[in-house]
């Protein structure tokens, strides 16, 4: 068991190492001199002497190898430099915005689960007929409607037309509602289809037939046997979809001016704030690795078969 976890952790460190290396290569390939960009960001005239002095100071004149080794050390000690825009350490800037992002992603995951269960159950019970067709249409639309358009539509109807919900910023539940729906609804409709298929397949399983023969009530069978077993695979997708939502966050946060990591990175990219951009890449890779590890711990708890092997 210990070996299993050690292997997992080693694998994840390897992923971060690869990401760090890729980032380093891309940074060197990308056009633009960091020293010049830093100077222009602060409106200092970029004379050749100033650039040379700054290059020396930033360590850009060292050999590529020593820059690379230093970068690797920085990655694992969470020293990702200081932001050009705010002159604050990048790691702190990102951590400061993480709670807002996690709040939104969790709310999105909750909306997704609710939509999955609701649409999935209804379409599985009425598996032929109008409701089921609508479920299928919703799944297709859920996979086709881009989140930025859904966000616009929601803002237009609920903020502009009806004036019920605030269209931007972070605050109470009212602020959270529309961004969370934008983030989670589409994926929920897609998963509902998976849940429906799983439930219909469960119906023909022997243990369900046996319960039916023993005379258990229909509702009991549906909830405690069919739904329970059909839902497990969906639950296992939750880790992946949570990671997916942290990515989808970038768009949703931009639309709703949500003060999280996603909105920040777009601002940084527009301002060519290189330390923040590379910090974001490393930061998200740490985040995903942590999520994957948490998911595995969760599975092993949930499924005794995994514990044995």
């Amino acid at each position, binding site marked *: 068991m210990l070996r299993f976890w050690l292997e997992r952790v080693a694998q994840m460190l390897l*992923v971060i190492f*690869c990401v760090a290396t890729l*980032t380093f290569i*891309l*940074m060197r*390939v*990308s*056009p*633009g001199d960091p020293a010049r960009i830093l100077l222009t960001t602060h409106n200092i005239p970029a004379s050749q002497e100033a650039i040379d002095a700054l290059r020396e100071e930033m360590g850009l004149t060292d050999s590529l190898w020593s820059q690379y080794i230093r970068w690797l050390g920085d990655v694992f000690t969470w020293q990702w430099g200081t932001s050009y825009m705010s002159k604050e350490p990048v790691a702190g800037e990102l951590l400061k915005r993480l709670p807002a992002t996690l709040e939104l992603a969790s709310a999105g995951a909750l909306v997704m689960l609710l939509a999955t269960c609701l649409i999935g159950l209804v379409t599985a019970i009425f598996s032929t007929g109008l409701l089921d067709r609508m479920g299928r249409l919703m799944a*297709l*639309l859920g*996979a*086709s*409607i*881009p*989140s*930025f*358009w859904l966000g*616009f*539509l929601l*803002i*237009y109807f609920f*903020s*502009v037309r009806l004036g019920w919900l605030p*269209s931007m910023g972070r605050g109470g539940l009212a602020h959270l509602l529309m961004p969370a729906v934008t983030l989670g609804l589409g994926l929920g409709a897609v998963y509902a289809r998976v849940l429906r298929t799983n439930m219909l397949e469960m119906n023909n399983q022997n243990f369900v037939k046996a319960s039916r023969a023993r005379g258990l009530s229909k509702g009991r069978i549906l909830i405690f046997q069919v739904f329970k077993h059909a839902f497990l695979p969906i639950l296992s*997708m939750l880790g*992946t*979809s949570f*990671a*997916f939502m*942290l*990515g*989808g966050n*970038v*768009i949703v946060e*931009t*639309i709703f001016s949500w003060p999280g990591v996603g909105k920040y*990175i*777009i601002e*940084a*990219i*527009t301002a*060519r704030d*290189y330390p923040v*951009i*590379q910090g*974001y*890449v490393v930061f*998200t*890779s740490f985040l*995903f690795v942590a999520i*994957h590890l948490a998911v595995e711990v969760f599975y092993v708890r949930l499924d005794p078969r995994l514990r044995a092997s």
Partner: protein
Amino acid sequence: MRTLFQKKNTSLLLGISLFAVIVLLGLLAPWLAPHNPLQVNLSNRLLSPSGEYPFGTDHLGRCILSRILYGIRTTVSIAFVILGLSLCISLPIGLLTGYFGGRTDHFFMRLMDGTLAFPDFVLTIAIVGILGPGFTNMIIAIVIVRWANYVRLIRGLVLKVSKEDFLITARMSGNSHMRIMRRYILPQIAAPIAVFSTLDIGKIVLLIAGLSFLGLGVQPPTPEWGVMLHDATRYFQLAPHVMIFPGLAIVSFVLSCQLIGDRFKEQNVHVPKEV
């Protein structure tokens, strides 16, 4: 059973016709568009739909219908370029790793696991962010993100075909590896790859539009659906038509790809399930 089959046929037919109509509209854009998509006319800004401007005008007084029609050319052709590039990379890798296996195969599988662990959008944004926003960098980023999916698909298909009797016969009758791959494996796997690609075109279009919406992909004033929605951000609360029509364009195109792919997914033409 019969009605079920017919229903699926209609949706496939619907998907194909929608796809064909959109591509045709894009091809005929110069003849169909009522105005020049780049013509700025500030006295006509934010007009509601009318006979002169069927979909209204945007914040610079440009005709939205014309911009959407030309947008088909931009978006769909970029999507096909990305698809082509990704296949150029993945087809040889997928064929070789699936056919020979061994250490190279192991190496590429690990590499792909790493790439696939990241959600598409995060990785694309990271790459575009470092390389800098723009058309070419967007294409590079999406190719880097998507190629692993194709390698996995192609490798799986090759592994499946390799177990078939006719392939063992081909091998025993002394065909060279090259000939076996070209004459026996490729024709077998071409159809599922084509199906998977159609499904994927929709996803690529969503990525292109999403990046352009964030200002990281196609740059204004090029007519592109994501760019149009980006421009609409500040004006849609006053004039909702500036976002409704470009959004509908994206949804109908992606939906047509979904409808085509959906049918095959249900028929199980070994298209791997995707999250």
